[in-house]
């Protein structure tokens, strides 16, 4: 990467907006693609929520959107399962992995470490376009004759392997697997780029112990991705072999549609192991970037250093390490040896420790702060709240004994939506509100941001808190209707309530979309450092330049959290009259390096 060369060669529309190698443009591409996929994913959830709430009613909107799969507005059970499956896939991978990590790793890694761009701009571009391709294939799979994949986002074989078992396991599943294989390639290329960039391209003075926590989170996330995504790729490849080439990795002793299959000796449990070896770290691939974003935004808007910087880094590393040895807690009742269940209970509950440390550190950061409630700050506090609520029920689900009766019920659905779904979405929103001025050079409307936050906060709890109780009552997830069990009749009101809240929450997202698009074009022009932040991205000019800094790369003299640092006499801040000292501010005369 030659720094000086940038900004001189002429750019065409195509190299600037489409096949761009500039990390800032790529980050915007990730964000827009992620948001579009998010709209599809959330719309799907509304459809199946309406089906659960009013299973005996027909809805015209079903027929409009689902066509022949909802004749006269009555949803077909296979389509219900397809909606659930694609909702999960899109939200987990396309929105919360690529949309969140792709956007902010790309935007912030070079800007916050003081680099001109990613280590390889070309690979970065390739990574985005592979992601785009995989999104196109996934969306395309919605339109195939027999319907998209419908075996649940975990695509356990044999259901996902045999077209005889359900229509979605035909071409729909082939497309799903192709899409995911490309997605994984994209994610791996992206992650390698992030890791190399963070290790090699930090500017002068930016030691690892002066990195903002965002960068630590993105860095560790990329490492987890590199370790675990290839395992999913191999699981997908083996499944493709079983589906198309007659192998028996996951299949054995199967009699279906009146005939015995030739497969022998394979084990679906093996697939579960391979799947969850990625599947669980994936939770943290989604969550850690959100926590990193929150750390940065809470510190900035509290006008205080983040509490326990080193403990925060330690927790991220501990969570990352533990996340790779807990996958079995998804499989307590899968038929694996109960002794293994004990081991996974032990490792799983250990994760509660670094999670608790992080939560308490966030709360302590607020303590005696001077809190500035910008919309990004509200979403960050919201994240801590849902992370705690959702994380605590993990103590129940991580305990093999208690998992027996709530496994695969709505209790699990409530748990993971709060702890990773909603929390990570809050992280995404917080990041967009906070770094919108950096991305588009405009300010978003704060009042629409407030409305958006409070509708979402009320709606998210309204949807997912009562859902725990529905799960406790024993209602299984992925049921097209529960009217065949009169025992569940008294859950109907609660299920309707949940759906009303879901519609309300989705409605609230329109405020965000409107604000986002409107501000992009008509927003107020952003000042260079609107949130009075210490990190390096705010030292770049508002108008994007190729190479980020017009002149020399900045030199870093301090850690990123010197907010409200008092001077030696204690009568003013180290910079008189200014409650922050950016990372490029040299140490003042007589100032002590208190922490870094």
């Amino acid at each position, binding site marked *: 990467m030659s720094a000086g060369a940038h900004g001189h060669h002429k750019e065409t529309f195509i190299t600037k907006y489409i096949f761009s190698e500039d990390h800032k443009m790529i980050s915007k591409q990730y964000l827009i693609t992620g948001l579009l996929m998010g709209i599809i994913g959330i719309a799907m959830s509304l459809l199946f929520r309406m089906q659960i709430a009013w299973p005996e009613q027909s809805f015209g909107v079903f027929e409009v959107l689902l066509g022949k799969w909802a004749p006269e507005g009555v949803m077909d059970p296979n389509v219900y399962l397809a909606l659930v499956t694609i909702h999960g896939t899109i939200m987990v991978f396309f929105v919360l992995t690529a949309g969140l990590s792709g956007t902010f790793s790309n935007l912030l890694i070079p800007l916050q470490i003081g680099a001109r761009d990613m280590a390889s701009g070309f690979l970065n571009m390739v990574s985005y376009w592979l992601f785009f391709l995989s999104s196109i294939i996934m969306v395309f799979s919605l339109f195939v004759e027999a319907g998209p994949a419908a075996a649940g986002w975990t695509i356990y074989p044999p259901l996902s392997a045999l077209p005889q078992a359900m229509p979605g396991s035909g071409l729909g599943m082939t497309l799903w697997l192709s899409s995911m294989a490309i997605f994984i390639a994209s994610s791996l290329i992206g992650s390698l780029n992030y890791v190399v960039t963070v290790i090699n391209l930090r500017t002068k003075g930016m030691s690892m112990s002066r990195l903002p926590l965002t960068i630590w989170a993105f860095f560790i996330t990329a490492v987890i991705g590199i370790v675990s995504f290839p395992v999913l790729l191999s699981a997908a490849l083996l499944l493709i072999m079983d589906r198309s080439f007659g192998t028996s990795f996951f299949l054995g002793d199967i009699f279906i549609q009146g005939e015995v299959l030739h497969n022998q000796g394979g084990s679906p449990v093996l697939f579960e192991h391979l799947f969850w070896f990625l599947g669980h770290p994936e939770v943290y691939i989604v969550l850690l970037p959100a926590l990193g974003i929150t750390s940065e935004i809470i510190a900035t808007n509290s006008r205080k250093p983040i509490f326990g910087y080193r403990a925060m880094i330690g927790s991220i590393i501990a969570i990352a390490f533990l996340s790779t040895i807990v996958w079995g807690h998804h499989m307590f009742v899968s038929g694996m040896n109960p002794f293994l269940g004990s081991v996974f209970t032990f490792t799983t509950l250990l994760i509660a420790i670094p999670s608790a440390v992080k939560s308490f550190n966030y709360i302590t950061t607020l303590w005696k702060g001077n809190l*500035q409630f910008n919309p990004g700050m509200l979403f960050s506090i919201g994240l801590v709240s849902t992370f705690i609520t959702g994380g605590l029920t993990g103590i129940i689900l991580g305990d093999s004994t208690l998992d027996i009766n709530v496994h695969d019920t709505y209790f699990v659905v409530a748990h993971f939506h709060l702890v990773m779904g909603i929390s990570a979405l809050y992280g995404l929103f917080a990041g967009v509100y906070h770094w919108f001025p950096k991305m588009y050079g405009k300010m978003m409307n704060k009042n629409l941001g407030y409305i958006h936050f409070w509708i979402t906060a009320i709606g998210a709890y309204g949807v997912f808190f009562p859902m725990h109780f529905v799960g406790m009552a024993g209602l299984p997830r992925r049921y097209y209707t529960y009217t065949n069990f009169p025992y569940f009749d008294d859950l109907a009101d609660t299920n309707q309530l949940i759906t009303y809240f879901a519609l309300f929450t989705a409605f609230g997202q329109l405020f965000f979309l409107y604000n986002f698009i409107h501000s992009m074009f008509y927003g107020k022009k952003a000042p260079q450092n609107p949130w009075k932040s210490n990190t390096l991205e705010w030292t770049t000019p508002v108008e994007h330049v190729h190479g980020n800094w017009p002149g020399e790369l900045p030199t870093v003299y301090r850690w990123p959290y010197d907010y409200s640092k008092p001077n030696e006499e204690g009568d003013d801040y180290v910079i008189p009259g200014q409650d922050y000292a950016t990372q490029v501010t040299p140490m003042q005369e007589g100032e002590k390096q208190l922490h870094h």
Partner: protein
Amino acid sequence: MTIFLVLLVVALLGVTFWQLSKIFQLSQGKNDNSQIANDNDNKNQGKIMLLFVIAMYAMIIYCFVAYRSYFLPETASEHGKDYDNLMLISVVLIMFVQVITQFLLHFFAFKYRGSKENKATYFADNNLLEAVWTGIPIVTLAGLIIYGLYTWTDIMDVNDEDDPLVVELYAYQFAWRARYAGADNELGKANVRFIEGVNTLGVDASDTYAMDDIVTTELHLPVNRKVVFKMRSQDVLHSAYMPFFRAQMNVVPGMITEFAYTPIKTTQEMRSSDFMIEKVETINGIRRNKNKDLLAKGEEALEPYEFDYYLLCNKICGASHYNMQMKIVVESEEDYNKWIAKQKTFKQVVAK
């Protein structure tokens, strides 16, 4: 037409938002259009934070009161009591931590809402505090882990010394079958490759143990005797979920999975328990209301509901996954013996 209406609604919503944001901008006063939170915003949002945590407490209380009948149905198995105990301890602990941490989070947000006069305290590190909130979870979790693992080992331990009743649970798209081991209490060998005609479970006819096996569509269990389920699937993954017995195990093609428990309440006893009387009364109330509508439409009324134990499939298995169930009857040993004597053995079925 519908598309046109949808577009119209979207357009109107757009106008609404535009107007709303105008109104908010005007209410801000002309001099502050920076879109950065000012003291007024901090004051308002801080107050809403406090209101929010109060509302959250109200919601928690409401859920625990209004949904108390959802909370784990009365248990009908021996280990269920240990399970419920552990669940109770965990829930109490979780709610304790939830109430405190949410209060601190939102209360601090309210109390330390920013203003131009305030100064934040530079407080970046404290090893003692970090040690405290690392130590407390370690101790608490150690307790939970030990208690949990003790119970887990107990539940998952299938011991032949108990002289358990052996029953095969057989799953296929989209129904269940039970195969009793018969007088020898030993299941005959089976494999899907033997499926043919009336031998729908693929029992190995050359295995002498198989001759007295009994295949049924209902699951009858004698009360107070341990039962070991050996589970087998014909096609895809299923899961045998018996919530009243705190029992669940996946049913995996190509291998045999196991789960064991002792039922301690007969169906009759469960029906006459306070929990179930109240529950059934609520459900029948709902059904009576529905019937009014149904009769008005000239359709058939729903039967009043009577409780029976059931087993459901709890692993996505295809289109009719939602209706893959089997009735479970727990009864006295005499009743069970009478019932099983009436069923045909494998030998009788094949001979026909």
